[in-house]
């Protein structure tokens, strides 16, 4: 299990390949990558702020919760902070399990919880100015299905 919080871009291919190669006994690896939507070119940049210290602890707790619910062989969460351009990868999760149902479910669970329980805040910069992205009720509601 690995949690990486960094400003730098990450190498999706290298991380995915290494994750799959190390997932001994797995029959399924699911990866999800979140990208910065450029909203048809309107977005100049996205700034992501986080809470150093709590971020790592909160993500680790979310991953531990996923491991207690599904028989995961491994899990990886990478989340960036700082200034990102449209189209850049913000974050990724990877899960490994013996069968795909568990890997898919755990990846979705991780995504749902990272959305509203990991201390990140996004600010969109456009030609009209800067605006904090508001949390969406649908994201909070998504937690209830687990």
């Amino acid at each position, binding site marked *: 299990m690995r949690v990486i919080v960094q400003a730098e871009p990450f190498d999706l291919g290298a991380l995915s390949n290494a994750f799959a190669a190390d997932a001994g006994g797995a029959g399924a690896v699911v990866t999800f990558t*979140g990208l910065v939507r450029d909203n048809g070119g309107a977005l100049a940049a996205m700034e992501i*702020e986080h*809470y150093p*210290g*709590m971020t790592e*602890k*909160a993500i680790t707790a979310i991953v531990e919760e996923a491991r207690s619910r599904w028989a995961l062989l491994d899990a990886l969460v990478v*989340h960036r902070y700082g200034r990102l351009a449209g189209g850049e990868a*913000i*974050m990724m999760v990877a899960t490994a399990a013996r069968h795909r149902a568990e890997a898919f479910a755990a990846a979705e669970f991780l*995504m749902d919880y*990272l*959305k*509203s*329980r*990991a*201390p*990140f*805040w*996004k*600010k969109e910069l456009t030609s009209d100015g800067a605006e*904090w*992205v*508001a*949390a969406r009720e649908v994201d*909070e509601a998504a937690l209830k299905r687990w």
Partner: protein
Amino acid sequence: MIEVLYFAWVRERIGVPRERIETEAATVMDLINELKLREERYAWAFDDLTSLRVAVDQELSGFDAALAGVREIAFFPPMTGG
């Protein structure tokens, strides 16, 4: 003394990312009310508690959380990760 951190628009309204605050407040809510009386910028930041979240020693908490022995408090809007 307690270390108080602010993030996102809460930080922008208060004007600093963190500060050390001398307080006798018993709970998070008491601290909020005390700060709101101190200066207008706190009243502005803490105006709508439904859009505010709090972490006590880096754990999400309620506004009724006790402050005895607490080292660090953080105030921020609902999180938007992922």
